[in-house]
């Protein structure tokens, strides 16, 4: 009995079919994630349309340099994740492990920078429901902006943390030498998830930090 036969589940005809089914399932899950984040993006759009001036002013309280740095960090982590998939398909275990470690390291850098930004918001009394202080005339909508800021980036950060958990599991299996050119589906699917979280940030960065900088 060869390695690939033991990995193939009984209800699949062959490895390509099994891989195809797994990949389709992951994509359907990501489609539901689009809906999940979509509701929050929509809430942001509706409220920004309702209070354009106050949202613009509130958005300029964010640190654009840290936001841009984090965007670059996530893009780098997507690159190392893509390389992890490549090395797993090529059956290069050491390179796979290094790529996974780099990806997780960059994910931690992202979360650390995000944490520094959050700490700054706490210091500047910009956390709704905790210590929010703002010019009284615009406090209501500004609080809405920061609620959406924490909601959107918090949900994104939660996805990053879950992603780190998934990559930890993949890393352990990679160290055990479980992935071969015949069987690298878990690495590929974790990659899809990681890139998806990157895509969410690609929209969050301009919408939260950038679009009102020029005013």
């Amino acid at each position, binding site marked *: 009995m060869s390695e690939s036969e033991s990995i193939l589940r009984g209800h699949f005809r062959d490895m*390509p079919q099994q891989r*195809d089914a797994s990949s389709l399932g992951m994509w359907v899950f990501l*489609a539901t994630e689009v809906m999940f984040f979509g509701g929050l993006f929509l809430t942001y759009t*509706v409220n920004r349309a309702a209070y354009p001036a106050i949202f613009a002013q509130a958005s300029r309280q964010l640190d654009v340099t840290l936001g841009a740095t984090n965007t670059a960090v996530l893009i780098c982590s997507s*690159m190392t994740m*893509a390389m992890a998939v490549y090395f797993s*398909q090529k059956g290069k275990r050491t390179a796979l492990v290094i790529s996974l470690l780099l990806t997780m390291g960059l994910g931690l850098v992202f979360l650390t920078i995000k944490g520094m930004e959050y700490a700054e918001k706490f210091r500047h009394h910009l956390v709704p429901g905790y210590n929010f202080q703002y010019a009284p005339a615009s406090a209501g909508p500004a609080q809405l902006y920061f609620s959406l800021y924490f909601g959107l980036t918090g949900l994104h950060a939660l996805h990053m943390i879950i992603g780190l958990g998934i990559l930890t599991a993949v890393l352990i299996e990679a160290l055990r030498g479980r992935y071969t050119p015949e069987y690298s589906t878990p690495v590929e699917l974790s990659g899809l998830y990681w890139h998806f979280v990157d895509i969410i940030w690609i929209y969050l960065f301009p919408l939260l930090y950038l679009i009102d900088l020029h005013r």
Partner: protein
Amino acid sequence: MSNPSQQSDHIVPPKVYAAVFLTLLLFTFITYKVAFVDLGEWNVVVALLIAFFKSTLVALFFMHVYYSRRRTSVVVLSALVWLFFLIFITMSDYLTRHWLY
């Protein structure tokens, strides 16, 4: 059925990944710089177009949609269509209320 062209695990050359990676960094820099230029209402449009371009690159190459079966594209497009309904129908309400009152 296991014709290589139909498999979803196409091995993408690192050169392609590197080209996509550099393009993503370049457009992050561009979107950052453009944000400081006053284009009025067009700042949002330009920022979202760049974001859409970047996310398309990620999906096509990092996520292998370009090399996958057409069925994968159908799932991706259906997600975008639902997102469009969600935003379009809601905003067509919110943005036109003052026409009536």
